[in-house]
């Protein structure tokens, strides 16, 4: 059994892991649709988006390993951390759900990531700016695709609409976390590494409102619930996805093909 790696407390590392892990875990979740999507075109689309997200995660995790950790590469960071050391927001680790849940989660997360990559083109870190320049093109495409489906299902049949409403009510609980600041954001803002989480809230809300209006879905009300995935405190779904992701590297340390 391969032992877990230990990470230092470093705001830059934490900022990068929050981004890289969001891409990594959502990529893994979307990959679950491969062979299960309702139509073959969506099977292809979801797998393609998963691939883009995992590519983006590779870039960010490699950067985090090079700049903040002496000895770890992208694979060790992806596969050999304990649950509490993954800093993705909780929304990306939630169960796969039905197709409406997947579409609405993708709309929420792609809109957030698109706005984040836009801002990260101006980061003080040249390599992160380069990753952002590429990822932005992909995130735009993901957002467009998810928004098209949100409109089709939200403004669709009674059954598709009900599923969208149920999915949105649940997903919305996990959106405040995306825009809450803490010391990691303050450090990133001060050093020019990237925007504080709260800076993306207004533009995100404006774009979500546009998508949901077109889908004839009401914007859910805010609640007092707060998730804490980006501080390492995850939902019950995280352990399952990690055990699936990590199994090979834990059982066959350093295994490659």
């Amino acid at each position: 059994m391969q032992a877990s790696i230990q990470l230092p407390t470093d705001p830059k590392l934490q900022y990068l892991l929050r981004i890289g892990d969001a891409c990594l875990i959502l990529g893994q979740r979307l990959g679950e649709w491969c062979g299960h999507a309702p139509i073959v075109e969506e099977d292809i689309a979801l797998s393609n988006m998963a691939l883009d997200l995992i590519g983006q995660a590779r870039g960010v995790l490699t950067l985090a390993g090079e700049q903040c950790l002496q000895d770890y590469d992208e694979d060790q960071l992806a596969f050999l951390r304990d649950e509490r050391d993954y800093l993705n927001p909780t929304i990306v680790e939630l169960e796969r759900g039905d197709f409406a849940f997947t579409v609405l989660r993708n709309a929420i997360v792609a809109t957030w990531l698109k706005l984040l990559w836009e801002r990260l083109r101006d980061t003080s870190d040249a390599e992160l700016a380069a990753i952002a320049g590429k990822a932005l093109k992909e995130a735009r495409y993901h957002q467009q695709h998810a928004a098209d489906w949100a409109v089709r299902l939200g403004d669709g049949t009674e059954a598709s609409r009900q599923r969208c409403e149920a999915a949105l009510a649940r997903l919305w609980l996990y959106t405040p976390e995306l825009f809450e600041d803490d010391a990691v954001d303050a450090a990133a803002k001060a050093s020019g590494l990237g925007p504080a989480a709260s800076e993306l809230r207004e533009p995100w809300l404006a774009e979500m409102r546009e998508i949901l209006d077109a889908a004839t879905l009401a914007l859910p009300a805010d609640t007092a619930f707060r998730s804490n995935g980006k501080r390492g405190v995850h939902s019950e779904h995280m352990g399952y996805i990690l055990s699936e992701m990590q199994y090979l590297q834990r059982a066959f340390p350093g295994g490659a093909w």
Partner: protein
Amino acid sequence: MNAAVEATRVDRAWAVLDAVPDPEVPAISVRELGIVREVVDRGALLEIVLTPTYSGCPATEVIERSVLDAIDAAGLGPARVTMRRAPAWTTDWISDDGKRKLRDYGIAPPGPAAEGTAPIRIVGRRAEAVPCPRCGSAHTERLSAFGSTACKALWRCIACKEPFEHFKPI
């Protein structure tokens, strides 16, 4: 003195790269695809700078390998490949020859990538007309935003009834 003798190691490397096919779209070379950014003669080593097409493109490693093999086979090695992410690859870098070969191969080539920077429109959006690579008709429709590889979408021609792939402008 003939031209062959004058050709530098860098010139010859570019010529070799013109014959290295893209593994997923073998109709065009990696050079025509616009992913070879630079070739630098560093004395002992020939450095080839590549840029990835998509963050998660699974062909990236295969391309790196086939580029190095081709350079070695031409006796221009040893060579090293470096990846450069910025500026991000755009389909505008596909050469005119490359676009023509794509069309001949049955893949509708990408239009200008500027389309990819327009604000996202949720409603009232009209897909750009992509002419059929087989019969040239503009009477076509998109079947799927994603295709067999990250860089393509699925379309069909309503005039000649044939399905085709479209290289997405990014």
